[in-house]
């Protein structure tokens, strides 16, 4: 057990090392910072980026938009998923909307949102449209797959509906919800930054990426990308911790 954990960590470390090596080899091969900056150049640039005046503000705003979009989408997705799970008419009413939302190209949404909303709101709106369907359908399938025999047992023992909801439905749906949330969290960062690149809010990781690109500073593009990846990792870890907490609740 322990041995295999150590072995797995070693494998992951080796894989990261290989990635850096390939990166370095490509940088050496092209020998043009504009196309492929070397890992060490990126690291230095990243240090500069972090020290710049607008770094924490940009990260903070992007993070705020991401979390706001994520929380709003989760909340509405859970409520809508429950409503649809308990009432087939609601499900059939929502179905066309969800299907349309799910199939709209991200770029169309971003462009329309730029036309309609303030630049600050665009990323949040886009995030909502991208992840609401995921949360909604996961909650819905959680409710549809609930163990009917457990429900029957709870009803036969005349457990109060409110407790059936909090002690039976919620814990049973939690794995579906968390799987959806983990999936949605990954998408959120990709979508938020894409929307920021096009809508250019004053403080944003996406805006910085776009400026770096316009300035032809590829190393800075890499550095901001690395920052985005790091944030994504931290949040996914946070989500895991939250899931463990929630599991105890049922």
């Amino acid at each position: 057990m322990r041995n295999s954990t150590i072995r797995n960590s070693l494998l992951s470390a080796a894989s990261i090392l290989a990635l850096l090596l390939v990166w370095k080899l490509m940088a050496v091969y092209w020998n043009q910072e504009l196309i492929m900056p070397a890992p060490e150049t990126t690291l230095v640039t990243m240090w500069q980026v972090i020290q710049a005046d607008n770094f924490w503000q940009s990260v903070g705003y992007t993070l705020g938009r991401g979390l706001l979009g994520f929380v709003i989408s989760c909340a509405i997705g859970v409520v809508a998923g429950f409503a649809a799970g308990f009432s087939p008419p609601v499900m059939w009413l929502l179905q066309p909307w969800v299907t349309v939302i799910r199939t709209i190209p991200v770029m169309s949404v971003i462009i329309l949102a730029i036309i309609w909303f303030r630049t600050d709101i665009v990323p949040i709106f886009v995030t909502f449209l991208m992840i609401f369907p995921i949360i909604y359908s996961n909650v819905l399938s959680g409710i549809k797959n609930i163990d009917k025999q457990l429900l029957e047992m709870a009803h036969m023992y005349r457990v109060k509906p409110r407790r059936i909801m909090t002690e039976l439905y919620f814990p049973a749906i939690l794995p579906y919800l968390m799987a959806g949330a983990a999936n949605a969290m990954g998408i959120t960062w990709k979508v938020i930054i894409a929307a920021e690149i096009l809508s250019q809010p004053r403080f944003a990781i996406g805006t910085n990426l776009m400026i770096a690109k316009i300035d032809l500073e590829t190393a800075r593009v890499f550095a901001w990308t690395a920052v985005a990846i790091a944030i994504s990792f931290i949040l996914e870890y946070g989500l895991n911790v939250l899931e463990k907490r929630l599991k105890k609740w049922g």
Partner: protein
Amino acid sequence: MTFRLRDIDITFGDLPVLKQLSMDMDEHQLICILGPSGSGKTTLLNLISGSLEPDRGQIEGFEGKSISFLFQETRLLRWKTVEDNIDFVLKDRLSKTERVEIINRYIEMVGLKEFRRYYPDQLSGGMKQRVAIARAFAFPSDILLMDEPFKGLDLQLKNSLMQAFANVWLTDKRSVFFVTHDLDEALLLGEEIFVLTPSPGKVKGVITNAIPYKERNLNSDPLRSIKDRLYQLITAP
């Protein structure tokens, strides 16, 4: 007679499930309903629990009675421990101190004291069924309905569970309605054994088994003679 079913008819679609079924039963007895599959045993339990209404006939003695259940599946909440699973059905009815006392008592009776904080996934199938037995008895009920709770278990496990069940029941005699298709289960647990006909179900006969539980052994002569009578009743035209 405290419980009475009189001329019950029930049909699902075109299929008559119970026809002219009548039963008279006393309180605090372990009543066994023995019948082949399709004889409407589960339907009979649903009529008793009130989740089904008969097409015709009277059902008396069950009004306002509180009922607990033992199913073939254990139906435990995976995310709750042994004690919390029992607490789940008690919480709306009893105070915290009463619950703790009752939960402890029944967990001990089914021999799971050390496992009270375990989750169902950490228990064997037999242990889970013991938790379900503890839950059924911990629930403040007048009646206990059992729908083939020992079906599909291996012989040794089945015997130890029936033993555990009988031990709890002897200290706490609820009115039990125990449905089974297994002759040996009926002989080991039943006090009154009602034999049903194949579909549509009606009562073919009743056999009383007055042998004390401690002396019930499938190889003993008294139980054998009851088994012969049961067998004759089942195979009679």
